[in-house]
């Protein structure tokens, strides 16, 4: 065997192993999604969305309280997190463009995106649950908002930077003050990108469980009162999956299916928006 042969065999082996690695990575995706789909579809009933939980161990009932609770918590988290994120990103990309402080905040936000979410839960417990003496929906919403802020802030910053500087100069030349340029020119140019950031941040928090465990906690009854403990899908999945009853397990699968589809749709929508706006260049 010549040296060339050995090199070719080496190359072939290494590349085959890489391909195998990619296949392994994809097999997990198919395996997990397929499993969620099969188990989830079997348990998915209309009553899941329209009925509240039956007493523990008894068949039937649904998770209406958890669906509504999740929506309310996510809604308020978005309401708090998104404006702060967009405005913060605006500062970094516009007023503080090129300054050291903008770089620092940008790097720290990147770190905050990956900080363990359970730590944020303990932080909120200390400042929003302990002082009031009971778990409450607001604490959950704020915990999720804290996770959203850096995500929205960083995407907004990146998207605003993509708007050409000459566009701003054209507006300055007409005598427009900077805030008008930002709101009427820059935001408009970057709207698809900012929307993607919002979608991705909602997708990110929709599956969060750890920060809700000791903030909004759980509630087996229907409640829209943000000052009381509030049910969420994810915490309910955790409780039901760890519980002893088969009916709980199948409801946990169904809830997982709903949440997974919701998040995958948001993620894909976000990608489509980005492609639609920036793909044709």
């Amino acid at each position: 065997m010549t040296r060339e042969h050995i090199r070719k065999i080496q190359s072939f082996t290494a590349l085959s192993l890489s391909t195998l690695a990619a296949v392994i990575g994809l097999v997990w995706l198919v395996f997990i999604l397929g499993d969620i789909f099969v188990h989830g579809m079997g348990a998915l009933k209309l009553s899941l969305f329209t009925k509240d939980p039956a007493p523990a161990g008894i068949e039937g009932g649904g998770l209406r309280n958890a669906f509504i609770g999740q929506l309310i918590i996510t809604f308020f988290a978005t309401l708090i997190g998104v404006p702060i994120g967009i405005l913060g990103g605006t500062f970094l990309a516009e007023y503080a463009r090129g300054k050291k402080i903008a770089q620092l905040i940008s790097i720290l936000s990147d770190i905050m995106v990956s900080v363990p979410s359970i730590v944020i839960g303990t932080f909120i417990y200390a400042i929003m649950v302990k002082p009031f003496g009971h778990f409450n929906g607001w604490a959950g919403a704020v915990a999720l908002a804290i996770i959203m802020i850096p995500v929205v802030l960083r995407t907004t910053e990146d998207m605003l930077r993509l708007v050409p500087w000459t566009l701003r100069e054209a507006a300055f030349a007409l005598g427009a003050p900077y805030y008008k340029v930002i709101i009427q020119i820059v935001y408009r140019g970057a709207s698809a990108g900012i929307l993607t950031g919002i979608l991705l941040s909602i997708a990110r928090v929709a599956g969060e469980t750890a920060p809700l465990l000791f903030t909004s906690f759980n509630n087996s009854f229907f409640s829209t009162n943000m000052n009381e403990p509030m049910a969420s899908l994810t915490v309910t999945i955790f409780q039901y999956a760890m519980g002893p009853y088969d009916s709980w397990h199948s409801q946990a699968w169904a809830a997982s299916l709903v949440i997974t589809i919701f998040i995958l749709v948001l993620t894909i929508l976000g990608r489509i928006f980005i492609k639609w706006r920036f793909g044709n260049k």
Partner: protein
Amino acid sequence: MRVLLRKNPVDLLFLTITAIASATVLVLIAGILYVLFLKSSLAIEKFGILNFIFSTDWDPVRQIFGAATTLFGTAVTTILALFFAIPVAIGTAIFITEIAPNFMKGPIGIAIELLAAIPSIIYGMWGLFTLAPIMAEYIEPALQNTLGKVPLLGALFAGTPMGIDLFTASIILSIMIIPFTASIARDSFNLTPAIVKESAYAIGATKWEVVKNVILPYSKSGVFGGIILSLGRALGETMAVAFVLGNNHQISSSLFHAASTITVTLANEFTEADTDIYLSSLFYLALILFVMSFIALAVAKIFLLRAQKRYSA
């Protein structure tokens, strides 16, 4: 680029509002550190720092707490997860950038990103109901019958395989971090200038030689940054491991033993802590976790920035 339009009062107001909004990030980081420190001060006073870290006691009844068991669980699951994930992730990145035909690159990239978007609680529940039984019935007994027979190494695989243990938790964690590592490795590989690769091909290098001698050295700081980033994620992952680890405060030489990590302890015990010192010790664990992952993520960021700078210059 300096814009001199600050005289307008509305502009000044908008500037102030956006500045405050971006400062929330700084306030949050400082606030988390301060509050966690304040809340854990009781435990810090009572147990000290080194004493807490190296003490294997975790006894809510006697009110004595130490972090060694949870730190052990965190370290073992993280290291094992990286050990399983890194080869797969780098192989996947090589496949996407160098091997796959162009029409496949997009779809596979999207598939990997979808894997990253699945929330960790789904991984955890899937691990409990699907993976753990498979591990207990097939994989763990098989490992015991092969590697378990080897002297010394056998201790790692001792005990009854239940599927609820360090090994299963590490596997789930590794599935979770494969997409992060793979997509960062892919981005770093893509930064290698085409002309350098083509030069190597021109002197007769095989594809693998190009990957090994050109692309990997070129992108090593980006890939390393990606690995550290995954390490930071794995350290703080809660729900993926909470289902299958068993929350058992013991250090065992076997991977087939239930254990606990910082995150699992927090998730299971935070709402049950009935005394001040118990709660304070849990806050202490959260503080340690925050500092550890913050350092890991900062190091990762430095490497990734360095990789970017090198090629944009």
